[in-house]
């Protein structure tokens, strides 16, 4: 009978997924309607989902005694959990709830995808039996999670920016005076344009730009530390800290993209729409590094010794 029941870790996973889906829907509707009760409903759901996910990882470790992050199931579920965690921290600090529907929605998608990779418990192959696994994987996955949150804000920035541009072109609205101002959206919102009204309620382009910077500034040091600890682990396990393995080099590529972002962001004229595009490309490169390399390109990181 006991065998027929779902193990605790899988139950927690379903709870987290449910909380994210409902939370995402509530925040999406909040994004459009600005009804405060929806936000008050979604915040505890996001927190509960996140807690259930960490509970799931602990339960899995307790049940199997195997470090749970060494396959796509475990790492993806940590990815979703940390993305929600970072989002919650930023949301409390910088009032980021307007982006919550998208962050929770994406997390729910990744979590659902993670569940399809659940293969049951498997002991680690020799090269993964290292304490570095316990340091390196969480760091890298957390950096990916931070980049996911900055990606969502970048997309919002770009939508707002291009909406303003298209309104400015249609005339006879106010001309764009400063790069980061959105007078046309404000005017269209006052005139009852629904799209403009939604966009008018999210922070200004300048504030969105600063938010993107702040979140990338969490992700990039994490990625740097992730690459460094990965190199230390490789040094111990494969004999060289850098082997030009596809996974390493894909992470290096993402690191370079975000270094470009940081440098562009030091320039007044390039801060804003251009740096938002670079942040968006950065997250696509992270997704390639995470899934593309795992699924299409084999290398040392596919763990064949």
């Amino acid at each position: 009978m006991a065998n027929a029941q779902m193990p605790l870790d899988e139950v927690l996973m379903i709870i987290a997924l449910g909380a994210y889906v409902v939370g995402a829907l509530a925040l999406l509707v909040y994004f459009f309607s600005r009804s405060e009760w929806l936000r008050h409903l979604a915040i505890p759901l996001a927190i509960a989902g996140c807690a259930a996910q960490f509970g799931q990882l602990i339960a899995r470790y307790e049940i199997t005694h195997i470090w749970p992050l060494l396959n796509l199931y475990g790492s993806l579920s940590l990815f979703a959990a940390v993305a929600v965690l970072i989002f919650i921290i930023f949301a409390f600090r910088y009032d980021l709830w307007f982006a919550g529907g998208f962050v929770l929605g994406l997390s729910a998608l990744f979590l659902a995808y993670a569940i399809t990779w659940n293969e049951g418990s498997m002991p680690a192959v020799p090269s993964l039996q290292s304490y570095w696994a316990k340091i390196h994987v969480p760091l890298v996955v957390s950096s990916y999670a931070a980049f996911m949150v900055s990606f969502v804000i970048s997309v919002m920035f770009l939508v707002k920016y291009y909406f303003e541009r298209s309104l400015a072109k249609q005339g006879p609205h106010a001309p764009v005076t400063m790069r980061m101002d959105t007078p046309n959206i404000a005017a269209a919102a006052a005139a009852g344009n629904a799209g403009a009204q939604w966009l008018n309620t999210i922070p200004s382009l300048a504030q969105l730009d600063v938010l993107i910077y702040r979140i990338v500034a969490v992700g990039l040091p994490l990625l740097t530390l992730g690459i460094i600890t990965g190199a230390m682990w490789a040094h111990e396990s494969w004999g060289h800290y850098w082997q030009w393995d596809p996974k390493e080099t894909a992470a290096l590529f993402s690191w370079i993209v975000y270094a470009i972002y940081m440098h562009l962001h030091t320039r007044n004229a390039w801060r804003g729409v251009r740096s938002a595009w670079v942040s968006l490309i950065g997250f696509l490169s992270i997704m390639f590094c995470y899934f593309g390399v795992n699924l299409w390109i084999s290398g040392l990181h596919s763990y064949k010794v």
Partner: protein
Amino acid sequence: MQAVRELYDDFIRTFGNVLFAVLLFIVWGLLTLVGVIIAQGKDPATYFDSYAAPLARLILRLDFNNIYHTPYYVGIIGLILLSLTVCTFKRVIPARLPPLRAVAIDKIPLHASFDVVGDPESIRDRMEAFFRARGWNVRKRELGGVEWTFADKHNWARRGVLVAHAGFVIIAAGTTIYWAKGFSGDEAIVTGQTVSVPHTQTSIRLDGFSYKIKPIVTKSGMVYQPIDYVSRVTATGSDGVARTATIRVNHPLDVDGVLYYQSSYGFAMRFRVTHDGVRVPALMNRDYLTGDEIDLPGTQRSIVVAQFVPTVDRLSGQPSADPRINDPAVFLQIFDSGQAAGAGLIPMKAAIDAGGGWRVTPERYLLVSGIQYTHDPGVSLVGIGAFVLLAGLMISFYLLPARLFVRVDPGPEGSRIGLAAMTVKGYDIFERQFNDLAAALGTKLIGDSRG
């Protein structure tokens, strides 16, 4: 002379431009991506198998099969280092560590001004106390006949960029040391065999190799999961003393500063070879690795040891997926004048008839351990550089050096304060704090002057 000067100026202008550095970063990124997408270090035929012939030829011609060691890959990193150096002296230092100077307050996007009661001198003193109480470092200067007050926060953190850039240079230096003085390689050692490792005075004998594999039932079927690989070796270093040791994955052996790693494993075969029933010792007393050939003397025939199969499936007679050794066999291919003339999966002690009176019998197998060795005298420098880089990133990202420019002039109510702020990351990032600060300062001084 004039031309040289102009050339030099152009060079400095170009290499000192952040956008040029970004361009170099883009090229570096794209070359790195090429190496991710195109498998590296494979033999040329692989590329012709995977890509259309013209593309495969292009890949090989441009060395895209070994891109990370090409002159242009190394060259782009060299250019980045050059640009970084020029930029650091021409841009970063002047931009991040500017002298205290007078500014046109209302030309700076973050500015505020208000009138307060009181003479400028006492207002300056009260203002100074206000800033100090909030953790600002205050300096006063007379510039062009005007008394300026400057307040800085996290001024030391202006050097964070320099730290990050220095970290990158240190990493580059560490990797260069490896290229200049380091070496690495690998050796496949058959059980009982001794190899002398090139570049070193070390010899290593493989006393035994073992591996542990666990069959696991997963939701999508049976998986054979490797659990452990262990080489027991006797290593003799430059002191001539033989020491026994074990090498396992994640636990390398250090002999004279060279590290030896467990990297792979395989099998070697011994065969009984007879011609018309007579043993041929020259062909028998050898270890054959996968891919090796047994050339039958006096014929055009050869037998290739194609694959060692640890377990043959009893029902089908085909190789099974089980990598543990239960019913071993070896897959042999017979070639005659280079043409395939037969093949078979031959169990141990069974014989294959190679024609012309030749018979080949797999007699025993031996485990082979793949050991990789590396000597990298730059590794600690790379490690230090990595942490310096990380520290630089954190200082640059998490601390916001900001400078307030304040002047107090006589005004209608006594004094007029002009306040402006600049940060190393533009204005938007500081807007809210600036407004709060200006409001608090106004309240304080107006409150003070009333009280």
